């Protein structure tokens, strides 16, 4: 219920002026739960909100400035550490949105730095980061081997002075997933940034966002990822041949299904404009929409069975059945339980 209110206010910030204290409280809790509080605070900037709300939003805007500064600094540090390798480094997700000055970066919570490098350069990149002060996080040998064998990224590294995480990707989906995106093409066509490094081309950015949202993971926190997609389309959707190029690129990466569904969901939830041909075939979209809007006014996710179904789906997408059974059995014995409190 509050996730729906969050959507309404993000799209029409003026709506917030009609809220009473209870609704404000629910809205802020949902926004924090979805890690969209920074985006909400940026959207509501300048509006005449009640003083208790204004103080909370001012704090969030201060955090936005710091997130932005820290994210750019992490980018700077990683590029400096990797500079001697003369290796393409493509920024992904939040850091890319901020470094490229995109609408999707406004108020975006960042957390980790995600980069994409060519797979054949992975060992050199890893060595350079380790010698520049990043260290392994995962103490678990099963996880470490699992990452190196099957994942699309190295096990996460954390910097010992700054306590910030870096995820080094060599492609955008786990190697066990059915689609095999063309990571080499993504890197080859990446757009260089003035300060060094590069970001994905807009259609690749969208393919990555769609893959991340719908072809990998259980969609927890997915509303923010869908908001990214909405903002990317809002900013670039009017460009000539945008939809044709997006369609072609999604096909090249084997991501036609996820890309189409992402556009349909963005249209459904955020009213994103898209050509009619993109909005056909909405089977099961209602379930995805319900999954994305489970956050209630306490900041809690409701509908445990729906969430569990998406959790199971995420593993189904990620690996073949026998491997999945083995993986879940190993994780269960280690005490991991899928749907948290």
């Amino acid at each position, binding site marked *: 219920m509050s996730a729906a209110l969050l959507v309404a206010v993000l799209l029409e910030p003026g709506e917030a002026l009609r809220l009473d*204290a209870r609704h404000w*409280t629910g809205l802020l809790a949902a926004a924090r739960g979805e890690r969209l509080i920074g985006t909400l605070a940026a959207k509501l900037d300048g509006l005449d909100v009640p003083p*208790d709300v204004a103080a909370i939003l001012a704090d969030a805007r201060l*955090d936005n400035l710091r997130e932005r500064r820290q994210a750019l600094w992490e980018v700077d540090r990683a590029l400096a550490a990797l500079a001697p390798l003369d290796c393409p480094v493509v920024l992904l997700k939040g850091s890319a949105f901020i470094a490229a000055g995109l609408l999707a970066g406004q108020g975006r919570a960042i957390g980790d730095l995600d980069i994409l490098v060519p797979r054949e350069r992975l060992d050199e990149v890893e060595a350079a980061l380790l010698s520049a002060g990043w260290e392994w996080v995962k103490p678990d040998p099963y996880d470490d081997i699992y990452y190196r064998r099957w994942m699309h990224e190295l096990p996460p590294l954390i910097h010992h002075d700054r306590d910030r995480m870096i995820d080094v990707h060599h492609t955008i989906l786990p190697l066990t997933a059915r689609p095999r995106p063309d990571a080499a093409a993504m890197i080859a066509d990446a757009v260089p940034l003035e300060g060094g490094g590069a970001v994905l081309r807009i259609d690749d950015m969208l393919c990555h966002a769609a893959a991340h949202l719908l072809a990998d993971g259980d969609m927890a926190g997915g509303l923010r990822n869908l908001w990214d997609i909405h903002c990317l389309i809002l900013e670039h959707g009017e460009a000539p041949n945008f939809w044709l190029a997006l369609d072609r690129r999604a096909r090249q990466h084997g991501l036609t299904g996820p890309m189409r569904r992402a556009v349909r969901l963005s249209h459904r939830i955020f009213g994103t404009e898209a050509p009619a041909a993109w909005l056909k075939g909405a089977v099961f979209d209602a379930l995805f929409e319900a999954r994305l809007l489970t956050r209630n006014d306490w900041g*809690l996710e409701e509908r445990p069975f729906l969430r569990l179904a998406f959790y199971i789906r995420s593993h189904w997408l990620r690996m073949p059945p026998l491997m999945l059974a083995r993986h879940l059995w190993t994780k269960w014995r280690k005490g991991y339980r899928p749907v948290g409190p």
Partner: protein
Amino acid sequence: MRHEIGLGIGPATFRIGSAWRAPLDALARLYAAYPPVDLSRRVPDFTVRLQPTRPWRRLIRPSIFIAGDHWLPEAAPMALEHGLLAAEMGMNLQMALGWRRHVLLHASSVERDGKAIIITGESGSGKSTLAAMLGERGWRLMGDEFALLDPVSGAVFPFPRLISLKNQAIDIATAGIASERLGPLMAATAKGDIRHLVPRADAIARMKEPATPALLLFPQYGPAADRRPVDPGEAFVRLTQASTNYVALGEAGFRALTRFVTQVPAVALDYPDSATVFAAIDDLWSRIG
């Protein structure tokens, strides 16, 4: 959440939701003297949730997971009989991770004549106990856990939540105090035995009233009595370690702490018993005048 309560402590307001009634009843009793926060009119700064670790753990072997706007995925579950402690930890967590309007110092503080002593140190240094006892001896208790340093004015603002007394400190600090001001004894929690003490009425009535920091103490309980001045550089470094939001505040935090350590004298006090430390504090205070 099945049950909820609104609480205001110093400048911060909280909404605490719980799957169980008992922890909130305990809060309502101990926070009865605090100004009420009406959640239908006021938007609280933070939400705290006391939720079951698994859906069925509300009724079967109840187990509390502390969550809220800010939470730690690895937080240890807590027994329902420690629910009051869970609520307090939940509120502390929101402050530690989410408060941005002051530099948050992990320190206790007391005030007299508009001037404050800030007492900081590792867990077990005795800062809570000292503040609790000073609060019963003519000082206004400002807080036993967090001191809020205003980056604009340089003043310290109170956060007089319930005082959390641990282990041997419980008997020492609650001697002669009426039972209405005491929470239940929670034995064998992850932090040892815990008992909460309601601050005196003046501490609650004046909980929005700041004070000028006049003395910074680094007490250490245990060793033989000793006293040495702490230079501003060392005080600065130790305060950055004692602050949970120093990094988040960026330049404002740096300026506030720099001003603090250059204006406020700092002293490390080792003390073997309370008589020694109170005599030392009286002596230091008389020189500040």
